[in-house]
């Protein structure tokens, strides 16, 4: 998830919020790297979900992705679950 494709996730989440969804899991099991634009989109959708009274979980990160969140201290802003199943369970 990088500068050239970051809007795709944002659009999916914003459409879901418009359709009444406010509990969202973003799973990174198939994501090998993220840049700062991708991180910015996550911050942005996190705000939108909060405004909608909902909750966001991130899951499935490899060690490199986790390291990015720790470096930027975004691990203090997001709730990160070990697996998609665990993230879904936390939101239900």
């Amino acid at each position, binding site marked *: 998830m*990088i500068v050239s494709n970051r809007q795709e996730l944002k659009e999916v989440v914003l459409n879901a919020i418009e359709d009444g969804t406010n509990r969202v899991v973003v799973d990174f099991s198939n994501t090998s790297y*993220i*840049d*700062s*634009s991708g991180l*910015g989109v996550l911050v942005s959708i996190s705000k939108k979900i909060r405004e909608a009274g909902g909750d966001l979980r991130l899951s499935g990160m490899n060690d490199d992705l986790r390291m990015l969140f720790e*470096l*930027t201290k975004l691990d203090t*802003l997001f709730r990160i679950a070990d697996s998609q199943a665990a993230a879904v369970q936390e939101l239900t």
Partner: protein
Amino acid sequence: MITPIESSGPGRQDEALLVRVPSSLEYVEETIAMVYEHCLACGVAEHVASFRVRVVLSEALGNAIMYGNAMNPEKYVLVRVDVRETVVMLQVEDEGQGFDPSLVPDPTTPERIEEIDGRGIFLIRKLVDDISFNERGNAICMTLRHA
């Protein structure tokens, strides 16, 4: 499609790749993929090429296209990759006025942690082993150890 304008190919002592990228974000992924494959072919460890190289190149290339060249279709970004025995050097140069990297604020402070932008240079500094800018501030050189 982007074509390298210079490539010594793997197997040479100084394994260089030079790519001229139009100032549009649609070329970012293709350029990153080309550099990634070049690094692998030149013996850069997969875990270095797949994460650190791709992230820092995405940051530098995105900045060069969006801020340096302001998406001007008449301007280009030059990406040069030099794979040496123990390091890979990535140079990204745009045609913009340049910027002062010392003025980029820390994005991890409590007042900035929820900002959408402003983490790019910070991430590059954290992920590379050495970083330098030219005097004008429109070219960045990032060095990563790979062996």
